[in-house]
C-alpha cells in the first residue's frame, strides 16, 4: 500500500496536535462554518442558490460514498442507486401518502440503510474490483426496477412523480428556494458533524484499519463482516438522504434522472474532492456542479472527454484531491512558520 492510501484523517479539519485549545477552536469553527454556509441564501439570486443547493446535496451524497469507499476501502460505483431510492421514497411518501418533506427524510434514510445493508452483505465476499463492477450493475439495474409495472401505482412508472417544493415554515419571510437551501445546509451540517465524530471515534479507526490492514484488524478481534456491512449501510443511508433532499429540491423524480452517469458523477466527485476526506466531499460537490459547465465551454461537443481526462489527471497528480492539495499547502505554510519561529537560521 502506498503512502497516499493511508491518509491521516486527523489533519483534515484540525491542526496537527489535537490538544485541548485547538480542539475547542475547531469546535468554534463548526458554527462559524455553518453561518458562512448559510450566508449565500441572502446574498445570491435564486438560480445560483439552486446550484448551491445542488452542491450541498452532492456533497452529502459524496460524503456517503466516501465513507464506504474512502474510509472503508469498499469501492462502490453504484451509489446512484441509493440516491435514487432515497429520492423515490421521499417523492412517493409526499405524493401518495401526503407526508411533509421533513418527515420523509428519516424514512428514506431507513429504507436506504436497509437496502445498503442488504447489498453490503454479499459485498463482503467481493474484493475491490468485483464489488465495483457489481455495484455498477446495481446502478444500471435500479432505474429499471423503479419503473417496473408492479410499482407503477407509487412510482408513476416511466412518467415519474411530481412533488411540490415546500414553502418556508413558521411564516418566515423566505422564498421557497431560500428555505430549501437553508434546510439542506442544516441537514448537511448535521450529517457532516456526525460523520466527522464517527470517523474520529473508535469505529472510524476500525473502518480504516480494515481498509489498510484487514488481516491485522481481524487478528485484533475486529468483526470484519459486521463492520463492513454496517459501514455500507451507513454510507447508503447518507447518500439516500442526499437523494431525498434532491427530490424535494428538483420537485421531480423519474427513472431517467438516475442513470448510471449519476453513480459515475458521485465517484468522480469523490476522487477529485479528496478520497477519505470529509471536506473533500464539499469540493467534490462544487466540482460536479460547476465543472461540467466549464467543460462544455472548453470542449464543446465532447465535454465528457475533458471530464474523464480531468479524472485521470487527478489520480496521477493529486491522488488526495483538492482536500489533499489544501492540506499540503496548509502543512507547508505551517512548516515555514514553525521553522521561522523555532529555528531562526541554520
Amino acid at each position: 500500500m502506498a503512502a497516499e492510501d493511508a491518509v491521516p484523517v486527523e489533519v483534515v479539519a484540525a491542526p496537527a496536535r489535537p490538544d485541548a485549545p485547538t480542539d475547542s477552536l475547531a469546535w468554534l469553527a463548526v458554527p462559524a462554518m455553518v453561518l458562512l454556509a448559510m450566508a449565500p441564501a441572502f446574498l445570491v439570486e435564486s438560480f445560483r442558490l439552486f446550484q448551491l443547493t445542488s452542491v450541498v446535496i452532492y456533497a452529502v451524497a459524496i460524503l456517503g460514498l466516501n465513507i464506504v469507499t474512502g474510509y472503508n476501502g469498499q469501492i462502490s460505483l453504484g451509489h446512484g442507486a441509493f440516491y435514487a431510492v432515497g429520492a423515490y421514497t421521499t417523492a412517493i411518501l409526499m405524493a401518495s401518502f401526503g407526508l411533509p418533506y421533513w418527515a420523509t427524510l428519516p424514512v428514506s434514510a431507513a429504507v436506504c440503510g436497509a437496502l445498503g445493508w442488504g447489498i453490503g452483505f454479499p459485498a463482503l465476499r467481493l474484493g475491490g474490483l468485483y464489488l465495483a463492477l457489481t455495484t455498477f450493475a446495481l446502478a444500471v439495474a435500479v432505474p429499471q426496477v423503479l419503473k417496473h409495472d408492479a410499482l407503477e401505482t407509487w412510482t408513476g412508472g416511466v412518467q415519474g412523480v411530481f412533488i411540490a417544493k415546500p414553502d418556508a415554515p413558521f411564516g418566515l419571510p423566505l422564498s421557497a428556494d431560500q428555505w430549501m437551501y437553508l434546510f439542506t445546509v442544516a441537514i448537511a451540517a448535521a450529517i457532516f458533524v456526525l460523520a466527522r465524530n464517527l470517523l474520529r471515534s473508535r469505529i472510524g479507526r476500525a473502518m480504516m484499519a480494515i481498509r489498510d490492514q484487514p488481516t491485522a484488524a481481524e487478528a485484533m478481534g475486529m468483526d470484519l463482516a459486521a463492520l463492513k456491512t454496517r459501514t455500507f449501510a451507513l454510507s447508503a443511508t447518507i447518500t439516500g438522504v442526499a437523494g431525498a433532499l434532491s427530490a424535494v429540491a428538483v420537485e421531480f423524480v423519474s427513472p431517467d434522472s438516475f442513470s448510471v452517469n449519476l453513480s459515475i458523477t458521485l465517484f468522480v466527485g469523490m476522487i477529485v474532492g479528496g478520497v477519505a476526506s470529509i471536506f473533500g466531499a464539499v469540493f467534490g460537490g462544487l466540482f460536479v456542479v460547476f465543472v461540467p459547465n466549464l467543460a462544455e465551454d472548453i470542449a464543446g461537443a465532447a465535454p465528457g472527454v475533458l471530464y474523464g481526462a480531468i479524472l485521470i489527471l487527478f489520480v496521477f497528480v493529486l491522488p488526495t484531491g483538492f482536500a489533499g492539495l489544501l492540506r499540503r499547502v496548509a502543512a507547508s505554510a505551517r512548516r515555514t512558520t514553525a521553522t521561522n519561529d523555532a529555528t531562526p537560521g541554520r
Partner: protein
Amino acid sequence: MEGLPHQIVAGIATGGIYASVALALVMIYQATHHVNFAQGEMATFSTYIALTLIQAGLPYWVAFVVTVAVSFVIGVVVERVLLRPMHDAPVLAHVGIFIGLLLVISNLSGWIFDYTVKAFPTPFDTGAPMLGGLVSGHELGSTAVTLAVLTLVYLFFRHTSLGLAMRAAAYNPVSARLVGIRVGWMLALGWGLAAAIGAVAGIMVAPVVFLEPNMMLGILLYAFAGALLGGIDNPAGAVAGGFAVGIIENIGGAYLVGTELKLTLALAIIIAVLLFKPSGLFGRVVVSRV
C-alpha cells in the same frame, strides 16, 4: 411455452455475444488480475477503427488483422502510460483510471464517429439463416471465431513459455521477478492481448447489435455475469457462462420475470454466484494470500 425451443436457440445466439466479451474480461483478469471497466468502450473504439479501414477500401480480413494489431498496441500503450506508474497505487486509483478511460473513450467515439447507428459488415455468408432463421450465418461464424480465440488463448497460456511467464507475473509478481520474468512487460502484454481480444469481440458483435458508441454498456454487464458464472479465471468456463447467461436471460425474460427485469436478472446472477459459489461453476477456488 410453445416458443421455448426458439427462445433457447435465440438465447444461445445472444449468448455468443456475451461469451466473446466474457472471454476478453477473463483474459485481462488472467494476465493482470484486473477487471477493466473500459474494456467494452475500448472494444467499441477498435470496432470503429475496423469500420473506418473497411470503408477506406481495405479487404475485410486485412482490416480485421490491422485492427487487432492496432488494438494490441493501444492496450500496451494504455498499460505503459496510465497503469504502469500507478502499479503500486491502491485499487481505488485503478478504478479511477478505468472510469476516466471509460469516459474519455466512449465520448471520443461519439465525438469522432457520431452517435448514429451504423451497420457493420460480416465476412460470413448471411444468405440462408439456419434453425428457422434464429441463427444467422454470422452468429455461427462468430461463435466459431470465439471458440478459435479460446483455443488460441488456451494453447498460448498452457504451452508457450511466454504464456507461462504471463501467468506467473499475474499470479505472483514477486516470485516471477525473482526468476527473471520482466513482470512490467508481461502486464503490458496482457493488456495488449485483452485489447486485441476485445477488438475481435467488438468486430464479431457489431454486425448483430449494430455499431454505436454505447454498444457495449449493457453487453459488458451480461458478459461479466457470464464470466463470473463460469469462473473468472477460467476462459472456457467464461465462454460457457456467457452462453448460459444468454439462455437464462431469454427464458427468464419471456416466461418468469418479464422483459423489463432482464438486466436485474443478470445482477441477481452476479450476486448469487458471488454469494454461493464465488469461484464460479468451473473456476478454481482461490485462497486469498495474506
